C-alpha cells in the first residue's frame, strides 16, 4: 500500500511538473509571437513558435486569448490564428471548455476582439450562449459583441406590435450602436415613426471650424508647400493667398451628415488649398482614432504634430474613409487640416469637403467636456 501511495505521489508530481513545464513553454512561445512587428520583424522565431503552440493542445487556448490583451494588431492576428487552430482541434476532440471560454467572455477587462473570438467558439459548444449572453452586451466595451446586441434589439423592434414599443426598442438599440449600417437602419426606422436621429451628435462630427484660404495648388504642386498656417496659428493674421489677402473666418456646417463642405461654405476654388482648424476640449488624455472622409489630398496636425498626410484626389468620399490612430490630451486640443483641391474638370471631381470625428477604441464618438 505504501509503495502504491509512493508511486501515485510520484506520478502526481510528474504530471504537475509536466503541466507547469507545458505552461512555461507555451508562455515562452506566446511571448515570441507577441514580439512580431512591422516589416516582418520577429518572423523567423515566431514562425517556429506558432507551429509549436498550435500543437500543444487545448490547455493553451485561454493563455493565447489573454495574450491578445498585450499584442499589437499584427501579433494579435498571429495569436488569433493560433487560437483558432487549437480551438478547432479541441472541438473535434470534444475538449473545448465552455466554462473557460464563458469566463473569458464575461471578463470585460480583456481585449474586445479576443472576447468576441472566445464567444464565437463558445457558441459552437454551448448553443444557449447567444441567447443568454448577448442581451446583456448593449453597453459592452467590445465593439463586435455590442454590435450583436444592437442587432438583436433591432430584430426585436422590427417584430414589436405597437409603435410605442418599436420606438422604445429602437432608442434602446441606438444607445449601443456605433456602426454606420446599424445607426442608419435605426434612424430610418425611427423616421417612419415620425422620429429623428441627430446623426451629427450620434457620430460626433466636428462641424465648427475656422477656415483660411485659398492658397495656390496649381498643378497639385503645393501638397508639400508649408503655407503660413503650418508655421503659426494666429486667427487674427492675414496672409497672401492665391487671389489676394486671406484671413481666418469661422464657419458652422449644418449638414445633417456632418459634412463640412468647403466649396459650398467658401467658394469652389480649383487648384487651391484651404486650412481648417478647430479646438476640442477632452475630458481626459486618451488613445483615440481620428476618422476623416474626404475626396481631396489632406494633412492632419494634432496639437501641432503632423499625424498623417495623404496625396490622393477624387477617389470618392466615404464615411470613416481614413482611420488614423493617435492620442489627445486632457483639456484643449487643436486639430489643423490642410485640404487640397486639384484642377480636374469632370463633374465627379468637384468635391472639396470633409467629415471629421474622433472615436475611442470601441468606435464610440468621443465627446467634449462641458
Amino acid at each position, binding site marked *: 500500500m505504501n509503495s502504491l501511495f509512493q508511486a501515485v505521489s510520484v506520478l502526481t508530481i510528474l504530471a504537475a511538473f509536466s503541466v507547469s513545464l507545458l505552461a512555461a513553454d507555451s508562455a515562452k512561445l506566446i511571448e515570441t509571437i507577441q514580439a*512580431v512587428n512591422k516589416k516582418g520583424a520577429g518572423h523567423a522565431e515566431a514562425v517556429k513558435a*506558432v507551429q509549436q503552440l498550435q500543437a500543444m493542445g487545448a490547455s493553451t487556448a485561454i493563455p493565447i486569448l489573454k495574450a491578445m490583451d498585450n499584442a499589437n494588431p499584427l501579433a494579435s*492576428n498571429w495569436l488569433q490564428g493560433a487560437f483558432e*487552430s487549437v480551438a478547432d482541434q479541441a472541438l473535434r476532440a470534444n475538449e473545448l471548455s465552455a466554462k473557460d471560454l464563458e469566463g473569458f467572455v464575461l471578463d470585460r477587462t480583456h481585449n474586445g476582439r479576443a472576447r468576441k473570438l472566445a464567444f464565437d467558439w463558445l457558441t459552437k459548444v454551448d448553443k444557449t450562449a447567444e441567447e443568454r449572453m448577448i442581451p446583456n452586451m448593449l453597453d459592452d466595451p467590445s465593439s463586435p459583441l455590442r*454590435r450583436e446586441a444592437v442587432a438583436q434589439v433591432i430584430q426585436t423592434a422590427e417584430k414589436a406590435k405597437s409603435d410605442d414599443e418599436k420606438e422604445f426598442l429602437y432608442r434602446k438599440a441606438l444607445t449601443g450602436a456605433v456602426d454606420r449600417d446599424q445607426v442608419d437602419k435605426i434612424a430610418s426606422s425611427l423616421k417612419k415613426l415620425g422620429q429623428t436621429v441627430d446623426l451629427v451628435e450620434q457620430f460626433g462630427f466636428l462641424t465648427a471650424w475656422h477656415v483660411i484660404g485659398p492658397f495656390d495648388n496649381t498643378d497639385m504642386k503645393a501638397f508639400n508647400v508649408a503655407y503660413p498656417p503650418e508655421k503659426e496659428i494666429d486667427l487674427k493674421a492675414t496672409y497672401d493667398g492665391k487671389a489676394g489677402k486671406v484671413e481666418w473666418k469661422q464657419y458652422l456646417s449644418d449638414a445633417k451628415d456632418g459634412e463640412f463642405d468647403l466649396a459650398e461654405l467658401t467658394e469652389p476654388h480649383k487648384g487651391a488649398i484651404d486650412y481648417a482648424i478647430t479646438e476640442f476640449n477632452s475630458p481626459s488624455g486618451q488613445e483615440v482614432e481620428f476618422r476623416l472622409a474626404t475626396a481631396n489630398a489632406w494633412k492632419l496636425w494634432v496639437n501641432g504634430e503632423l499625424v498623417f498626410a495623404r496625396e490622393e*484626389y477624387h*477617389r470618392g468620399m*466615404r464615411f470613416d*474613409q*481614413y482611420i488614423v490612430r493617435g492620442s489627445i490630451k486632457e483639456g484643449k486640443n487643436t486639430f489643423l487640416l490642410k485640404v487640397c483641391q486639384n484642377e480636374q474638370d469632370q463633374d465627379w471631381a468637384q468635391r472639396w469637403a470633409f467629415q471629421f470625428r474622433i472615436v475611442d477604441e470601441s468606435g464610440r464618438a468621443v465627446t467634449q467636456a462641458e
Partner: protein
Amino acid sequence: MPSRTLQLLCVLSLLNSSLFADWRGFRGSANNGLPEETVKNWDGEQEIAWQSDLPGRGLSSPIIVGDRIFVTCSSGSLQDRLHVLCFSSKDGNKIWQRDFWATGRTVTNPTTCVAAPSPASDGKHIFAFYSSNDLVCLDLDGNLKWFRGLTYDCPNVSNSLGMASSALSVGDKVVVLLETDDESFAAGIDAKTGETSWRIDRPERANWTSPAPSSDGKHVLMQSSKGVSAVDVATGEEVWNYADGAATQPSPVVVDDVAYIASHGLTAIRPGKSNTSVPEIVWQASNINPAVASPIAYDGNVYVINSSGVMVAVTQKDGERLWQSRLQGKFSASPVMAGGKLVALNQDGTSIVVDPANKGDIISRLELNETMLGTPAVGSDGIYFRSDNHLFKVSVD
C-alpha cells in the same frame, strides 16, 4: 505504423491527389485562365451540383488544391473581418474557417469589398490576400504559418476605391503588387517565413491588375498605367520594360514567350533579342479593347470581352479578328476555359458557355441570380462560382 501500411497510404494519397486538378490562384495555376487538366466530354450544359453559404462578401476567385476549395470573404460594418474558408469539393461541406482582423484600410467603392484580391497556393499553403493588404499564410488544414500587414507597415499604401491585385505564388515567393496614387511597391515575400525577400518601387498611380508569371516561372509581369515590367522572381530586378502605357484593370496573359496586354487596344509583346531590356512588339490591334475582364489565350487564339459585353476572338499570331459574340451584360470576372469551351460570368450572375470552335456560339446560360464579380475556378469535375453570399459548384462531367 507498419511500413507496408504507410506505403499503401502514400500510394493512396498520391492517387487521391492525382484525381484532382488544382486551380491555385487568380485565373488558375498558371494564371492564364486555363485548367491544369482538360475536362473531357463536357457538352457545355450547366447544372448546379451544390451551393454553400459564405459568411461575407468577396470578389476573389475560389482556388482549388486537391479535393478542397478555398474561399476568402470580408464582413462587418467596416469590412474589417477577414475570413478564409475551406470546403469539400465533393459536397460543399465546410471543413474549416479562420477569421482575422484587417490591419490596413478597409474602405472601398461599394461595388467591391476587402476580399477582392484572389488567394494563391503553392499546393501546400494558402496565401490569402485582401484589399487591406493583409497577407495570411495557412496550411491546408487551417494552421497559421504567418501573417503580414503590408499597409500596417506602410500606411499610405492604400486606395480609397479599394485594392484588387491578386497574390501570386511563384517558386518560393509570394509576389504582391501594391500600386496606389500615393506610396506604391511590389514585393517578393518568402513563402516560408513571410519575410520580405525583395521590394521595388512602383508607379504612384492606382492600379488593379494582377501580376502574371512568365511561362518558365522565372519572371513576373507587372502591368500598370505606365506599361509592363518583367521582374526577376528571385531578386526583384527588372529584366525588361514596355513603357508605352497599359490598362489598370485587365491583367496580362502569357503564352510561351508572348504576353498579350491591354495597351493601345490589345498588344502582343515578347522579350527583345537585340536589346533584351526592351520587349519586341509583335502586333497591336487598336480596335480590340479588353474592359475589366482579362484576356484569355487558347489553341492559337486570344479572346477578350469589351465594355459592351461582346467577346471578340483574334489570332495569337497577328491579332486578326476572327469572330465576335454578344454575351450580354457587364463583366468583371475574367473568362476561363473548361473542356475546350469558354466560360464567361457576367455581373448579374449568368454563366455563359461559349463555343470557340464555332464562332462563339453560345452553348448554354445558367442564371445563378446573384451579383457575381469574381472569376470562377475550374476543377476536374466542376466549375466553382462565388457571390457575396454563396459558393456554387456547377458540374461539368
